[in-house]
């Protein structure tokens, strides 16, 4: 009798890579190989530009990439990914590093503007502080979304809608009623939470993929309403001249009665930037503290229990609808706060700032950082947003790098960077974190 020969590793890998390359060729032939362009000059005719080299590069990249992944990650008995994760600190030491990391990060965050000012001067540090503001905004958004996705396990693809509601609430209230930032900030949060509940009521009976699609649609609806309601929101023109926040009634302006004048400093536009940085830092920290406290309270435990098993929750007398709604509303509220900060920082908003890609980036931060992990969100935002802006010069390639980073994380740490879950209540002092493979991701 002849036994069926198991194809060797190399043979099957090459075969698989060949299949991948063929699929790439079929797709790239039309999508990459032919590009419709407008001829310059008077005629402005359309013509097709052929780019066969690009097709060849795509096919070769896929072939080589798949071959390598097959050889080292997918097919072998001891994939490299396992060896790689061995390099990562294990669960215990990771939580210890995390514990030490938190105060260090906090000190860095607080000292950052002054350190930058010291090294680079007011002029040179401005762009970096601006970048820090942007990163912190995303950290806050990530923390807000973490309540919905990480704790309650509800996949929300339309989170940017609440960001938009917050931003437009402030812009419109300021434009029509002349309210200041400090009045509008809570109002924007409340309005966003209100919209979260309005969306939540019909949507939260859906689960999983269905929930994701409907939240995605809701995000688009909000944007399209803002875009088309010209009389009220200014449509694509956006709203400009949004008032800047004041520091306890002191405005950041030149001359008498301004911030610089009051404190006897020379006027500099950097004051306002630094103030904005601390403002968003405090808002983000408040988000974090509230979330961490909520995790230790019955509502927070109910969120996590909901993510683990909804039916068991109901059998224990937990009103799952209300529990989901509170998660949705709270996440939305923090999104709203961040939105009104965004409006006051930019001074100008238009629906273009609230496209689906924003939702996707925030979700990517939460997922890459590790669902439910607060410190993971920080690391992911710094890397993703900070890295993205730092490499602005390599515009053409940064999407490529971004994609590769994602693939790398997916292979290496499929549950996100920080995936151990810390228990919300313990009896003994030296309780360990819970490994990620035991924790559910939620079903929507």
């Amino acid at each position, binding site marked *: 009798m002849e036994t069926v020969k198991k194809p060797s590793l190399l043979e099957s890998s090459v075969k698989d890579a060949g299949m991948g390359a063929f699929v790439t060729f079929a797709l790239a032939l039309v999508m990459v190989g032919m590009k419709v362009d407008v001829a310059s000059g008077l005629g402005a005719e359309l013509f097709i530009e052929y780019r066969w080299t690009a097709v060849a590069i795509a096919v070769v990249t896929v072939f080589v990439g798949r071959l390598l992944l097959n050889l080292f990650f997918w097919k072998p008995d001891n994939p490299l990914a396992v060896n790689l994760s061995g390099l990562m600190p294990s669960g215990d030491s990771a939580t210890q590093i995390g514990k030490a990391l938190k105060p260090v990060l906090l000190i860095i965050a607080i000292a950052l503007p002054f350190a930058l000012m010291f090294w680079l001067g007011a002029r040179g540090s401005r762009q970096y502080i601006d970048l820090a503001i942007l990163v912190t905004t995303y950290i806050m958004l990530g923390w807000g979304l973490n309540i919905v996705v990480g704790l309650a396990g509800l996949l929300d693809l339309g989170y940017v809608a609440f960001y938009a509601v917050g931003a437009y609430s402030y812009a419109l209230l300021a434009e029509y009623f002349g309210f200041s930032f400090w009045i509008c900030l809570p109002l924007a949060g409340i309005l966003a939470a209100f919209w979260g509940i309005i969306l939540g009521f019909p949507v939260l009976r859906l689960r999983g993929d269905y929930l994701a699609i409907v939240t995605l649609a809701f995000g688009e609806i909000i944007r399209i309403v803002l875009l088309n309601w010209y009389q009220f929101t200014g449509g694509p023109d956006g709203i400009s001249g949004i008032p800047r926040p004041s520091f306890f009634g002191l405005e950041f302006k030149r001359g008498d009665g301004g911030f610089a004048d009051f404190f006897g400093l020379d006027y500099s536009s950097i004051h306002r930037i630094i103030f904005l940085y601390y403002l968003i830092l405090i808002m983000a920290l408040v988000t974090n503290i509230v979330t961490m406290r909520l995790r230790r309270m019955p509502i927070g435990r109910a969120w996590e229990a909901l993510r683990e*098993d909804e*039916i068991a929750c109901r059998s224990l007398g937990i009103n799952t609808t209300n529990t989901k709604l509170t998660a949705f509303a709270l996440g939305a509220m923090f999104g709203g706060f961040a939105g009104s900060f965004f409006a006051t920082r930019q001074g100008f908003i238009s629906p273009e700032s609230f496209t689906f890609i924003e939702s996707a980036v925030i979700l990517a931060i939460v997922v890459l950082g590790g669902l439910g992990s607060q410190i993971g969100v920080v690391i992911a935002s710094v890397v993703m947003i900070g890295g993205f802006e730092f490499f602005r010069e390599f515009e053409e390639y940064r999407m490529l790098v971004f994609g590769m980073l994602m693939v790398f994380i997916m292979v290496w740490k499929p549950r996100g960077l920080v995936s151990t879950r810390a228990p919300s209540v313990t009896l003994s002092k030296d*309780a360990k974190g*819970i490994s990620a493979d035991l*924790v559910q991701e939620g079903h929507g």
Partner: protein
Amino acid sequence: MTQWNDNPVLTVEHLTMRFGGLTAIDDLSFNVGRGDITALIGPNGAGKTTVFNCATGFYKPTEGRLVMRRSNGEKFLLERLPDFKISAHAKVARTFQNIRLFGGMTILENLMVAQHNPLMVASNWTLGGLLGLTGYRHANRDAIDHAKYWLEKTNLLDRADLPAAELPYGDQRRLEIARAMCTGPEILCLDEPAAGLNPKESLELNELLMYIRKEHDTSVLLIEHDMSVVMEISDHVVVLDYGVKISDGTPDEVKNDPHVIAAYLGVDDDEVDEIEEEVGL
């Protein structure tokens, strides 16, 4: 009549459940006596779990009603309550045939989630807790003590900070019972609590159930295939077959009931006519 009809905690009246053309339960009536351990037995597919799902609100019965009488005199019509209210107000707790624990949460956290409703009130619906009021802190400490009490009773105290999913099967079963007890139920519905347990664990389970019944004024309704458990501890046995009640009485009565023997073991060929006549076919 027998004791369970005098002072029932749960009365099932003319319960019928149809799924499309399939009648899973047909006009079922029985009583669960207060302080009794009542066993619901029957061959596979007899409709036992369906009765549980009706009683705990996961199914809405097609016909009939389920009356829960709490010891403080309150009466609840379970078929009209949403599932979470059945646990919260009518004080009916249940476990599941395929264990449903919060696997990624620690054992202690599982028991804390079970005390959600009183803790929500104590934390002023989160607001008081968020502000760190003392009321919530006390309530939280009491809840941990309550959880510790049940962990001790179920021999899980030394593993309180481990994730529930890491526990062996038998311990998971006990944890699920402890979690259900943490809701402070007046009737505890157990869906095959002894399934997959070894004889020693079964014995411990018997002791635990006897303890719960004795010390906590909780009636127990259980579905079970393990006759050593059923005959040992139950006061009252209800036998279902194809959604119809075929016997109802003390364990001894049920054991000798020809209908039950026929349903479980079948009958000899020469007895078929006799039995059919008796059953009324």
